[in-house]
């Protein structure tokens, strides 16, 4: 195991008001690997992934202790700007959430808000991102139509392309296929496998087959605790914890 650690959670506790949502989480995400986080709904997996790019800060009355290290530096350190963290750690959400703008503007948005003005560069980047997200062929002739006209699966790939354009190093997927049909889901999974060459990927899913298909490592969460973490193959074939076994064999959740 000489893989480089990209993100590391150290003794993370998280509270919503008085609810103890995450309890002493210690977890590593390796570079250029796909890590799946599984668990029944309400287990804290979505809460956890949103800490990794500081999206939790949008919700008031929460409290965090412990550290989350990105390339060894704590992203919650007072000197670190959340905006900088989010540029490096992108996120794809449960429901496709394109902006009510054109396809082109959706992709270029991340560049323009970060001060890129060079038109040619933006054009190239949009094309490159759409190609990487396997959407270019379908939309290249209608880049200036509204993104809202795309199908759900296309919209989700657009959201992935949008994240790729800002050149983040890590992409967080929060149940990216929850609202998609099986064919669109297959396309997204294929894409994730392709993307891991260049990116560190974390995917939250309640679909165990999906976790088995796309991930290298799997973490199992239950009631705010990390129950087990290991190579996906091992987790699914020889779980060490009874609760993990009960969950993946479908006895609850």
């Amino acid at each position, binding site marked *: 195991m000489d893989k480089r650690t990209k993100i590391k959670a150290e003794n993370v506790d998280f509270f919503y008001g008085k609810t103890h949502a995450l309890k002493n989480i210690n977890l590593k995400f390796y570079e250029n690997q796909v890590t799946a986080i599984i668990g029944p709904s309400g287990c804290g997996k979505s809460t956890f992934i949103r800490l990794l*790019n500081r*999206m939790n800060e*949008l919700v*008031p009355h929460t409290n965090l202790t412990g550290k989350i290290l990105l390339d060894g530096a704590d992203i919650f350190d007072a000197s670190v700007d959340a*905006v*900088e963290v*989010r*540029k490096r750690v*992108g*996120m794809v*959400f449960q*429901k496709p*959430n*394109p*902006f*009510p*703008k054109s396809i082109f503007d959706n992709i270029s*948005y*991340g560049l323009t*808000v*970060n001060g890129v003005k060079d038109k040619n560069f933006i054009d190239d980047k949009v094309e490159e991102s759409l190609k990487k997200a396997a959407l270019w062929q379908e939309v290249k002739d209608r880049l200036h139509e509204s993104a809202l006209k795309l199908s759900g699966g296309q919209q989700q790939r657009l*959201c992935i392309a*949008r*994240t790729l354009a*800002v050149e983040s190093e890590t992409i967080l997927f929060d149940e990216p296929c929850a609202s998609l049909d099986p064919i669109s889901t297959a396309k997204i999974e294929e894409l994730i496998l392709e993307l891991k060459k260049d990116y560190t990927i974390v995917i939250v899913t309640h679909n165990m087959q999906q976790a088995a298909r796309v991930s290298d490592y799997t973490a199992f969460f239950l009631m705010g605790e990390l129950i087990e973490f290991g190579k996906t193959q091992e987790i699914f074939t020889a779980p060490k914890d009874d609760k993990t076994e009960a969950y993946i064999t479908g006895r609850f959740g």
Partner: protein
Amino acid sequence: MKNHITQKLGFLGLFLCISITLLFLGAIIFFITARGIKVISWEFLTQVPRSGMTAGGIAPAIVGTFYITLGAILFALPLGLACAIYLCEYSPKGIVVNIIRISINNLAGVPSVVFGLFGLAVFVKYFKFGVSILSGSLTLGILVLPLIISSTQEALLAVPQSIREASLSLGATKWKTIKNIVLPTALPGILTGVILSIGRVAGETAPILFTAAAFYTRGFPKSAFSEVMALPYHIYALMTEGAHPDKQRAIAYGCSLVLLLMVLCISGIAIFIRQRQKGLHG
């Protein structure tokens, strides 16, 4: 059987209530249109009053209302937008927000004539703006501020949280998210609120009684510090002042029709847009 009859009578009662309400709307529009239409002509809309307010047109009053309304919106819109943005996008829920919310609600309930007195004491007297477009606009701007805030808030709340998150996750700052994503998405709703506010301001009379309005001015206003004629005030003045009540009454009908049409059209557009937006979002 008895239950059935009670139900019939009850429903009939409710039907009568809404019929009477709408009958009044119909009656107001009918009487004012029927008698006002005879007075309205191109000359009436574009000429200045003549012969001691008994002949000529009402152009200065229309222009005056336009200036006052424009001024009020220019003053209230930035404040209202900023306040709504603060409440919806920045503020953590808490005591500060409650205080602001309660003051908005109460400001909305202040009688219009009280705004007039406030304008008189502060803008006319204290700041020495005199009875002028400026004083009237500022007074009306304060009056309409709560309306702009609440309609903007409604529009901002209708913007899905998910696209705010998408923007932030791409490394956009909060302000850039608001400027590039939230405001453009909320724009139709905000505009509806602004249009409604224009309708409200254009018809208000009591706040400009002592701050801006004059029954008669020579020609058109020259600067922001001029007194002006204004359509709603003109109606009131024609009915209660002046030397020729009978001749003035005909002109008052014309003025009322112009004001009524203006306000109904403006509000009608806003109500229509709002209804369509509601329809679109289910």
